[in-house]
Every structure is written in C-alpha cells, then in structure tokens.
C-alpha cells in the first residue's frame, strides 16, 4: 500500500515537474503573441538629424507637466538635467566622438538624441505592474501611470527595456514619473508640448501610420536630395526644405520589442545613442506565455492542491495514531 502510493506520488511529482519544464521550454499552442498597434494609435517621430539641441522641448515639457528645472551643477544658473529622472521626463542628450566636429556623423562627430517614454506597443511596465497603475490606452496606445494606484514596488523600473519609469528616491512620499505624451493637452485638442515648440520639426506628433510613412520617406530618399520637412504635426503645412540627411537605414521603434509609438531617425547608429538593438518579440508576451502555461485557468495549481489535500489528510491521520 505504502509502496504503491509512494510510487504513484513519485510518478505524479515527476509528471508535474516534466509538465512545468515542457510548458516553460516549448511554446504552448496558445503562446501569447505580441500585442498589436491600436488602429488609432498616436505617437511621436523624433529625427536626430533635424534636432539642434535647443532643448525648447525640455522647457516646454516642464511647463506642461508642472516640473521645476533640475540642477546637477553647484551654480543653479542652467537647467542641467543630464538624463530623465524623478524630476525630468524628457531630455535631449548629446553623442560625441573624437573631435566631434561634424553633426550626425559617427566618427569625429556629434548628434542629439531624445530620451523619453517610447510608449511600447506591448509594454513590459503594463504587463508587470501588480496593481494596474500602468495602463495602455486601447484607443491611442498612450502608456499612462496612475500614482493613486501605485505601490512603489519599482518592478516597472526594473523591467522597462529602455529605463524609462523614474522613481523619486529622494522623497518620503515618492511618486513615479514618466512621459504620458501630454494626454492632458491632447484631451484639450492640443498636441504634446515637445512637438508643439520644436523649431525644426525634429519632434513630430501624429497618427502612427502617418509617422511611419514619413519615416520611410526620409530613409528611402537619397542623402542630399532637397526634401520638405514639416513642423509640429506630420500633416502640417508649416514646412521647410533642406537636403535629406544620411540616415541609418532603420527606423528605431518599428520592430524593437514589438514596436513603439515613438519612432527614432538618426545619422549615428542607435546603439551609440543609448538605444540598444532589441529583438522583435516583446518580453511581456514571453513572460505572459510562461505564466499562462503554468497558471492557465488555475488548473494545474488546483490539481496539485487536490492531490496535496488528499495526501496530507491521509498522512496526518497516521501520525495522529502513532503519537
């Protein structure tokens, strides 16, 4: 009796372990695919070759989102935010190499790069947040954060592939900060502050389909060809002409972790500008597939629990008699 039960249990345990391994290794038939871009998604197109580093966007962002300037030098006479932080949600960073004399050139050159939330199509932060404080708008695709829900566990900070969510570690009652694409301005019919003030049109706002088409137009046009560049929005009539830039032949954000709603164009490889080469499968979809494989419908845990209850009941009775 005892032997057969033990063998049965060993078999069951081994089977359970094997099933767990199989679920984790192989992709179950019901693998969670990457989420798709909402049809009416809006976003930003940032073109590094147009950016002159004036940081009007940084100042406008502060004004629109009620953020005071950030100081990193002793004399507080410039806004010197060096990266996004608990005080800054967009920033323009500078890449330099060697003599740094030529704009948008990898060797001996310099280039500007925007840092702010990329509004992933399949965001890790939304997938990992335990209390649904991170949400993705099903219409616009904007990734928002609700402080009233947030418990401050910082799992989003750990999981974001781009290091975007910023936690206020210096406060007793901290909040988490990230760009929400000025959704409060969009609700009033306005466009994000960074795109609104950009004098060269380096940051453009618009529907994702139009932004993608515009990015494709720029990367597929030969360098030097006179090209029209719009300001503020992708469908704007406020245009200026200049020779098309020598772009890296990739629009960052079209494939990375399933796509993002901020697209980036650059003359310098993205890895040098702080944007790593990333695969197309979103990390959220992979993690959710594994969790679903183990916990799907709570079937496996409940089956295990039933077995445990049965054995524990049987065996505690025995112990009672022994003692």
């Amino acid at each position, binding site marked *: 009796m005892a032997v057969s039960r033990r063998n049965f249990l060993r078999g069951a345990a081994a089977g359970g372990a094997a099933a767990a391994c199989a679920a984790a290794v192989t992709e179950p038939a019901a693998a969670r695919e990457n989420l798709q871009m909402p049809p009416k998604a809006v976003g930003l197109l940032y073109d590094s070759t147009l950016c002159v580093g004036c940081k009007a966007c940084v100042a406008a962002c502060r004004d629109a989102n009620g953020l005071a300037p950030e100081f990193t030098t002793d004399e507080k006479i410039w806004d010197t935010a060096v990266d996004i*932080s608990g005080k800054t949600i967009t920033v323009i960073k500078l890449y330099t190499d060697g003599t740094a004399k030529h704009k948008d050139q990898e060797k001996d050159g310099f280039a500007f790069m925007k840092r702010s939330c990329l509004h992933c199509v399949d965001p890790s932060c939304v997938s990992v947040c335990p209390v649904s404080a991170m949400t993705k708008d099903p219409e616009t695709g904007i990734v928002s954060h609700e402080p009233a*829900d947030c418990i401050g566990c910082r799992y989003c900070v750990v999981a974001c592939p781009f290091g975007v969510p910023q936690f206020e570690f210096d406060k007793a009652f901290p909040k988490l900060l990230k760009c929400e694409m000025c959704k409060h301005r969009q609700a009033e019919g306005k466009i994000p502050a960074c795109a609104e003030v950009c004098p060269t049109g380096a940051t453009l706002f618009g529907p994702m389909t139009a932004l993608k088409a515009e990015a494709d137009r720029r990367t597929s046009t030969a360098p030097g060809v006179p090209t029209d560049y719009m300001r503020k929005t992708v469908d704007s009539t406020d245009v200026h002409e200049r020779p098309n830039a020598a772009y890296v032949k990739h629009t960052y954000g079209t494939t990375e972790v399933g796509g993002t709603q901020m697209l980036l164009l650059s003359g310098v490889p993205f890895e040098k500008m702080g944007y790593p080469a990333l695969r197309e499968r979103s990390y959220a979809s992979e*993690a959710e597939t594994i969790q679903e494989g183990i916990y799907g419908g709570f079937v496996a845990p409940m089956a295990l629990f039933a077995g445990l209850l049965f054995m*524990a009941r049987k065996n*505690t009775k025995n112990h009672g008699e022994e003692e």
Partner: protein
Amino acid sequence: MSKAAPLGGPFITRTTVITAILTLIMAALLLYRLVFGLGAVTNLSNGYGFGLWIAYDVFISTAFACGGYSMAILVYIFNKGEFHPLVRPALLASAFGYSLGGISIMFDIGRYWNAWHLFLPWWANTTSIMLEVACCIGAYCCVLWIEFAPVIAERWGTPAIRKFLTKIAFIPIAVGCLLPTMHQSSLGSLLIPAGYLVHPLWQTNLLPVLALSSAICMGYAIVIFEGSLVTEAYHRPSEAHMLGKISKLIVGLLVFYLAVRWVNLAYAGKLGLVLTSGKYSFFFIMENVLFVLPVILLASQRNRVNPQILFVAAVSMLLAGAFYRLDLVLIAYGRPGWHYFPSIGEIMITVGFVALEILGYIVCVRLFPVLSSHHPAKDSNSVRRAPRVAATTNK
C-alpha cells in the same frame, strides 16, 4: 515517538543581547527611511530598482525559509513520519523567515500606504508575476503561523482547541505545500520580463524550474544547518542519522537542477559564455562550484552520516542558492551605465532582520515545545543551562 518540549533557560544571554541591539539599530534606520525616503538610507536608483532588500530579504531569505515547506512535503505528502521531529523547528524558522521577508517588503516599497491594493481584485493585474508572488507570500505567512499554532496551543491552549487544530491540520499543511511551489518558482520568473537586462548565463525561460528546485534544496540544507547548530549550541544528541537521509534528497534534487541548467545552456548555445563573460564568468563558475560541492560531498553513505561533512555540504548548498539569487537580482541584472552596491544603512537593516529572526527563534524554542526531546540531554552543562528540559519531559 518523541514529544517536543520547551527548551527553557534564560532569555538574556550574549546572543539575545547582541541580536536585540542589532534589531534596535534596524528599527532606528527604518524610522529614518520612513521620514527621509528610500534614497536617504539606500543606494537604490532608477538603474537598479531592486536592491539588497529584494535580493536578500525576499529572494534569499524566503528560500532559506523553505525548511518548513521542504519538510512538510517529505513528512506529510511522502509520508516519512520518521522525520517528524525535524518539522517543528523547520516550521518555526520558516514562519520567521517569511514573516520578516514580508515585513521588509513593506519598507522597501516606496508607496507602502497603498500596499493593500495588492490584495483587492479591482487593482489586480493578473499578468503581473509580482502580484502572484506578493499574494502568495502574504498568504503563506499566515499559513505558516496557522501551521505553527498547534505548538502554541500545546503550551497555552485548552484540550478542545488542541484537538480541533490537530484535526484540521491537513488543510494548512496542504496549502503550505502548494503556496511555496507557486511563489518560489514565480520568484525566478520575476526576472524573465527584464529580458536582455539579465545576463544570458542566467536569463532563461526555465528560471521558474531552477528557482523552485534550488529553493527546495535550500529548505533541506537549512534543516541540516539548523539541526547541526542546535545540536551543538544546546548540547543535544546528534541527529546526524536523520539529517544524513535528508541530505540524500539534496543530492538527487541538485543533480536535477544542474542537469536542467547546463543542458539548457548547451541547448541555447550559451556554453561558450561560461568562460568568456569576464566578471559574469567568475560569479557563474563560483556559484556552480558551490552547487556541485554538496553533490560530491554527499555522494557516499559514509560522508552522509559524518556531522562535519554534512554541515559543510549544507553550508555550500545554502551559499550556492544564495549566490544564485544574488547573482540573478543584482549581478546578472544590470542596466548599462548604472552601478549598485548596497549602502551601510541597507546592509544594517538586512542584518537587523536576520538578528530579529534569530532572536525570535531563540525565544520561541525556549518558550514553546518546538525541539524534540526524545533523548534527554546527558552532560551536566546542558542540564545546568536548560533545567526546564528535564522538568518538562518528566511530566
């Protein structure tokens, strides 16, 4: 069968005084953290959102606290009643380990006043591994104390309460076997969404399998570790014969763990990284040496009944599991351009939690019938130090 009895003896000793002082230092630092924020006490940053408290107090401490879980599986599910005397001390250590892990999370999360959101369905995000871990650990803390309740009832309860608790014991026992299976595996999964931020030598979809199997091993190792220490410290008879049998389980589980880990690496074509990853290679190899050592030490029956070898193997196993978790959370994980090393304050708070755990364990074994007293202690020293052992067993 043996009966457990309170150990008795003085509450004020050198160990309890030192642990109490360390606990008070921790309390002061925690107060400071509440008033001035996480940044005032920790070196946490937006590059390293998780620090020592998550790595040690949650990942490592709860794995150390798997003794109760591992022993419950062995005794109540696989019906190995002979190990029953080891269950109570293991449960007690688990109850402390998990509870303090749970409490430390409350100080780690930045917006603790919202912590209750974790337990209400309208906030729940079912795709979040953190939610699964948090609910599961929260529930398991309660279950551990319920599992321990019969011990307290034996000292202070009425016969009716005792009888009732014994009758329904199988329910908390079964829940207590289910919950750690879930959250110890999910603690591994927790790092999967971080993707490329975790070094490829550690990042794998088998993290839940590796985390769970190593946690069960650590559970058995801590039983051996504590059993050896208690035998030594309180001059109690050796339990090497029982601990030796448990150590055999570690060998089997470790072989499984190592096979899964290395076959997975080979399958993913990552074996070359073992030697070519600089500091990561160092930590990976060190970790694996610590995992292999107990397998070698405990391979022969002769070694398994040798208390010294058993102890060394258990320590190696615990260090291996601890480094595996530390590496996963703080070393293999890394955001380019960021660095993290815990501050003195962070370390002192973690030390304080460990001290509180030891202090609580000592108080409980002296007060409640935790340790089995099947062979009354013989040497005069132990009789003098723990007179109530004799008094209780004579009843």
